[in-house]
Structures are given as C-alpha cells and as structure tokens.
C-alpha cells in the first residue's frame, strides 16, 4: 500500500462524488425524453408493428455492451503499460456493467425476434457474436473473482482482456463467415433498409441517455471497488495491530 494507492483514489472518489448526481440527473432527463419519443411520437413499423419499439432499448444496449469492452481494454492497457492503480479499478468495475448491458441486449433481441422467427433464439451471425461477447465478459468476471490479491488479479485480467480485444474482431469475422457458409433459409435480418429520421432521433437520444446512465453506474462501481480494497487494507492492518511478531512480514505476504 504505497502513497500512490491512497492519493489517487481519494481524488477520484472526491471527483466522482461531485460528478455522480449531475450525470445521474442528466441521464434520467435525457432518457425520459428519449423513451417518451420512443413510445409515443415514433411511428410503429409497417412490417413489425409495435415490436419495433424494443429497438430503442436493444440497440443502445448493443452499442454500450461493445463500448464497455473497448473501455475495459483501454483500462487494461493502462494497467499493463502505465501501471496506474486506477486503471484496474476502472476495468474491474466495467466488467459486470458491460456483461449486464450485453445480457439486456440478448434478452431484448430474443423478445424482439420471437414474433418474427417464432423461436426465442436463432444462430444469427450478429446475435451469436453478441452471445460470445457475453461469454467473454462472464469469463473475465470469474477471473477477477478467482484471484484474491487485487494487483495480481488486475495484471492477469488485463492480459486476458487485451487478448479478448484482439480476438473479438476475429471471432466476429469467423462467425459471419460461418453463418454465410450455412445459408439458412427463411430468417429475417434485423438490419433492414435505412432507418427513418422519425425513428433515428429517438434512438440517438435514448443512446445518449443510456450512455449517461452507463457512466453513472461505472462511477458507482469504481467507488465500490475502491471501498472493497480499502476494507481489505484495513483488515490487514487490523490483523497486524497488537500482533508484534507479524509486523516483520510485508503486507503482501499474508495474502
């Protein structure tokens, strides 16, 4: 526990305490406008009817699910190259949020597809790629939790996250290729013709609103992670207190 470990997180927590309510408030406002437009002013689709409104939830979740991975990879880069203590806090906080947004994307996709495909799931190239992204998220979360010592966990997970960042485009490409290879009949594609402006604007506003909520969640998760590490540091100090023979051991050795 060097001075750097305490100094930076303190500043980050002070910053996030100030910023959080603004991000949350603005996010709620933008989202309220976006969802109002999505449900009341945007037209129903001539082919899909009212189910098109799932899009305003589904598409931002897909974007943010992928965006979260990009941010996580960026944080992982920060962990490995700059060894910045906040980088792995950011990466760890991001993983469950990214996984949740990806899961919501999968669930809404399934609900949206049911009336069209008459089944809850098809091995469509896009859906399948998102499913694999979800699996990668879950694996990374499990890896975070499997390693007790935060610094070591940060490094190991950063390596895997970056391998994932390089691998995901390859997976995406191979899945697309696999899908065209099999040429299944009678499956609608979700990306139909170009989208009407009456649908595009609500979608963009929803996306901005969800993004703000996303950042708010990330700030809160970073707070939690910092507190979790603080608890661990305090526990280790509490164990050393009034135990003279153990002060000779460096802090990391008891882990």
């Amino acid at each position, binding site marked *: 526990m060097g001075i750097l470990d305490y100094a930076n997180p303190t500043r980050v927590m002070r910053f996030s305490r100030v910023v959080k309510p603004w991000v949350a408030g603005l996010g709620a406002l933008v989202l309220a406008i976006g969802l109002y437009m999505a449900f009341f002013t945007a037209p129903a689709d001539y082919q899909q009817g009212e189910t098109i409104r799932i899009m305003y939830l589904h598409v931002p979740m897909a974007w943010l699910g992928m965006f979260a991975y990009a941010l996580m990879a960026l944080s992982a880069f920060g962990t490995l190259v700059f060894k910045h203590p906040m980088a792995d806090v950011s990466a760890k906080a991001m993983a469950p949020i990214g996984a949740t947004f990806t899961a919501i994307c999968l669930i809404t996709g399934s609900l949206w597809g049911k009336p069209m495909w008459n089944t809850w*799931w098809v*091995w469509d190239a896009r859906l399948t790629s998102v499913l694999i992204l979800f*699996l990668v998220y879950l694996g990374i979360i499990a890896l975070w939790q499997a390693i007790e010592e935060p610094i070591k966990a940060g490094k190991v997970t950063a390596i895997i996250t970056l391998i994932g960042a390089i691998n995901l485009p390859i997976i995406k490409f191979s899945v697309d290729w*696999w*899908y065209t290879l*099999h040429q299944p009949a009678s499956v609608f594609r979700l990306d139909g013709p170009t989208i009407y402006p009456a649908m595009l604007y609500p979608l963009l506003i929803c996306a901005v609103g969800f993004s703000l909520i996303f950042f708010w969640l990330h700030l809160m998760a970073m707070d939690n992670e910092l507190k979790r590490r603080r608890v661990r540091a305090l526990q280790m100090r509490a164990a050393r207190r009034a135990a003279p023979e153990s002060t000779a051991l460096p802090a990391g050795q008891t882990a």
Partner: protein
Amino acid sequence: MVGGGHVVTAQPFRSLIARDVRLAIRVGGGALVGTLFFLAVIVTVPFGIGPDLNLLSRIGPAIMWIAALLATLIGLERLFQSDKDDGALDLLRLTDAPVSVFVIAKVIAHWLGASLPLVIATPLLSLLLALEPRAILALTATLAVGTPALSFLGAVGAALAVTLRRGALLMAVIILPFSIPVLIFGVAATRAAIVEPDPFWPPFALLVATSLIYAVVGTLGAAATIKINDG
C-alpha cells in the same frame, strides 16, 4: 459430555454441508464457473454443427447432457483438493463417523453448489438449442436426477486426484467410461419426451436407479481411496 462418548448426530454432517456450500457460492468460490463452462460448451457446439435449428433441437438434449457431464467432472476435480491443500482433510477425519459420511456430505454440498445451478439454468439455455417445452421439462428432470450419479462417480476421481497427485485429465480418462450409462439413460428419457412412441418412464427409472447405485459405490470407493492416502 465426555471425550468421544457423545452419540453420532447429524450436526457434523449438516455443518460440513453448510460450510462447503458457503465456500462454493461465495464470490470467487468457483461453483458458478461450472455453470459458465456448461454455457460455453453449449454455445460452442453449434459452430461445429451449423445453425440449423431443426438439427440442433433434435440433438440438443445430447449436447446438453455431454456439456453437463464435462462441467460436473471438471468441477469435481477439486472436491477434496482444497481441503488437502490446507490440511483440513486430515482434521475432517478426526470424528467417530466413518470416512464415507464425510464423503457423502462433501458430495451433497458440491451438488448443491455446482450441479443445482446447472439444473436451474437448463431451461433457459435450452432455448439456445430450440428445444420444445416438453423436451425442456424432460431434460431438466433427467439432469436433476442424473447429475448426482456423476457427482458420486466424480468423487472417486477426486479422491484419486488427491491420493495420486495427478490432475484432472487422468481423472477424466478413468471416470468417463463409467459415466456412459448415465448418459445413455438420460438422453434416452429426454428423446422419449420428443419422439412420441418411445416410453419416457423406463429409461428415467433406470437413470434414478443408476444414481442410487453410484451413490453407494462412489461413496465407498472414494472413502477407501482417501484412506489409502496414508499407506
């Protein structure tokens, strides 16, 4: 209360189950990783077979049974290993109950922490393979009664792993052939629920019987293997 004069009660049994379940489901306990492995296998198989939903729904029960088999056996490797590593395995044997009692407690705890989540996740994951509601019901039921057989069988392998100090691979080689009957009856019962003329109950009853037999054989085998440990 004097020394070992107290009667054998269910209390030690219950407290060991409670401790192991708590260790398994806590953050980082690794029980849910088994369910994640189950999901990963199910997601991977269609890439080898193709996205044809008709085909997948026909072979889906078999895919899910094989995934459950692998997830259970791989997860069981460490059944006794963590207690061996920190010395608790010896201390757990310091009771007046036979070794097989603590083997049963450990297997039950492992089933609750690792296999039950897998059974609960089955209906949801079945949707990926386009299974019919009847097939989902049958598959979940067969997994619920069939996975205990795999757990008890895996306990023998786990005991071998601590005694021989060899990894999961050797264990899988030894245990996989013994799990074939479970697979046969489990998949047969599920198929019967899809293909109408085949009867569901005979293979299902055989599956239950296999679980009961393996519970006895696996417990005794694992207990005997652990005792060899000290030579």
